[in-house]
């Protein structure tokens, strides 16, 4: 059992996945896509980025009890050039926002963003009446997966990363330009 063998029916959100799946590519391209996407989704290397309490939960998800090395993600890269995904874990304040944008810009394509925790979705417990907190990290960088929780449990973080893997599965070589253009947030 365990989360690695999660079946299609057990996921909560399958409608968006079906919308993303393209139809009508030829057989050769579909096979190449499957192989390449299998390689890409099973070796997502995150950038070491944690600001606040969600970072502790992310560290616990990497610890032996809920291990995300099973999914190929335990290789954290310190340099953004070598990272595939940035898991924004923690509150982003106005002083930190330009730093985060710069790190995101330095990552090389294809890159993904996971917004972990309530603070990165809307500002969390600090969204009202705070002079210093950015209300949601999608005001700065485009986000692929939102994981609610304060902080989300390790199982919730793993569920979000699995959804990201299914998202990667639906991409094809042909749609890469569209995908890269959609992440140009100017």
């Amino acid at each position, binding site marked *: 059992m365990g989360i690695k063998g999660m079946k299609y029916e057990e996921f909560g959100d399958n409608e968006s996945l079906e919308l993303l799946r393209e139809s009508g590519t030829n057989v050769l391209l579909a096979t190449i896509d499957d192989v390449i996407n299998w390689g890409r989704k099973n070796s997502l290397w995150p950038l070491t980025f944690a600001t606040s309490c969600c970072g502790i939960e992310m560290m616990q998800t990497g610890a032996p009890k809920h291990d995300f090395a099973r999914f190929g993600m335990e290789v954290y890269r310190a340099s953004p050039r070598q990272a595939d995904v940035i898991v924004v874990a923690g509150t982003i304040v106005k002083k930190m926002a330009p730093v985060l944008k710069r790190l995101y810009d330095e990552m090389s394509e294809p890159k993904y963003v996971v917004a972990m925790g309530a603070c990165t979705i809307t500002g969390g417990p600090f*969204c*009202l009446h705070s002079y210093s907190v950015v209300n949601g990290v999608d005001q700065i960088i485009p986000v692929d997966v939102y994981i609610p929780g304060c902080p989300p449990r390790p199982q919730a973080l793993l569920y979000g990363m699995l959804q990201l893997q299914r998202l990667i599965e639906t991409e094809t070589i042909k749609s890469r330009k569209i995908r890269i253009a959609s992440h140009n947030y100017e």
Partner: protein
Amino acid sequence: MDKIQLAEFIKSLDSDLEVKEGKQYTEVTVPPSKIHSLASQLREKEEALFDFLDCITGVDYGHDLGVIYHLRSTKYQHMVVIKSRTTDRENPLFDSVSDIWETANLHEREAFDLLGIKFANHPDLRRLFLNSSWGFPLRKDYVDNDMITW
């Protein structure tokens, strides 16, 4: 010494003070210009020996701005609270006590950063957390157009 003797002793230092018993501590209210002399007496005199400053708190009372000092004596284990207010919101000025207690240096910089309260004779009064284009966020009349309020 117990609380009543402490209150008597502090009243004897300066006739301008008001000493009263708060819920937890003895509170002393002092005008802004006399903070430094009172503080140095409280540190040096043998009966009081307040050598530990817990914290300096800046307060915006609505019309006034003020500071609150929590002092403790490590020898006698008694505590006292000193309060001071000013109605001048454009240029609130209090005496700095950073030459008496070293820790006051950072506390006063924080009060200046977040409330705009200035301290005279402070060795290095500049902002601690925010940059210079921010106003004074903890004032009651601070307006932030990005802030969401329901």
